[in-house]
């Protein structure tokens, strides 16, 4: 549902709810009772549900992730002009949706992935406002990056399946697929955000035309 429609429906629900509050005596009539039922039960429930979905959707955007200051360098690393930086190569070549670049790789594609991510998010928020915010380069993943997140897109892809580097031993591809051999920490695709080295990096300029794809 478009955001404008959701916001309009919440605004209408708000106005009607407050109107009933100002004119509570209207509920003495049958029509007033029906109006109150719609204004105080049906519309708020619909507004909360659609609003919740919209908020969950927004929580997947790059803008949301980078709104915390400590994440700024991670956003900057997406623009490094060096294809060996895996996130940068994915971002600049539209291998991930640009507006959801963080979520595309850091969503835990398992049954409780979203719930776990939200619980972690609450912890991050508590640290942001009440704790000691670590340096960007000191931020680590809770668990080693799981190949599942890469295979979500690459599994079955010709380039991935037929890549010689993935078949150096007979069981290498199988080990990658079962996460026994990590994509990111097996000296293969191990240049990730590297936020500690950004001072000397060259950056690519994201243009409006290049961003049009997503």
């Amino acid at each position: 549902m478009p955001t404008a429609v959701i916001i309009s429906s919440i605004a209408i629900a708000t106005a009607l709810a407050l109107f009933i509050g100002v004119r509570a005596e209207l509920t003495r009539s049958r029509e007033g009772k029906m109006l109150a039922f719609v204004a105080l039960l049906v519309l708020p429930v619909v507004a909360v549900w659609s609003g919740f979905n919209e908020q969950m959707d927004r929580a997947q955007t790059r803008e949301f992730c980078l709104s915390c200051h400590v994440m700024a360098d991670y956003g900057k690393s997406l623009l490094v002009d060096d294809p060996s930086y895996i996130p940068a190569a994915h971002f600049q070549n539209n291998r991930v949706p640009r507006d959801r670049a963080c979520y595309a790789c850091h969503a835990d594609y398992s049954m409780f992935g979203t719930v776990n991510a939200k619980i972690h998010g609450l912890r991050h928020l508590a640290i942001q406002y009440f704790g000691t915010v670590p340096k960007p380069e000191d931020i680590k993943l809770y668990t080693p990056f799981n190949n599942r997140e890469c295979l979500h897109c690459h599994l079955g892809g010709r380039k991935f399946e037929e890549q010689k580097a993935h078949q150096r031993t007979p069981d290498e591809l199988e080990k990658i697929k079962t996460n026994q051999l990590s994509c990111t920490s097996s000296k293969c695709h191990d240049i990730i955000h590297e936020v500690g080295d950004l001072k000397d990096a060259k950056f690519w300029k994201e243009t409006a035309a290049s961003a049009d794809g997503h």
Partner: protein
Amino acid sequence: MTSIERKIRWASILTGCGLLVQLGTFLVVSPLAFIAFLGVGCPLVIAGVLLYLISLLKGTTAE
């Protein structure tokens, strides 16, 4: 004003305030807005809806 109308008035104030908070959270895209939506907006609306339902039940019982 009857007691049911008073409950409905409170229900509408709670619901209206909750929805206003929710509207406000759409102005910015940030984790804090997300928390305000879930932690402030939703409980206020739920409290308002529950109070309205209670007023309906009490009204039915009184009749």
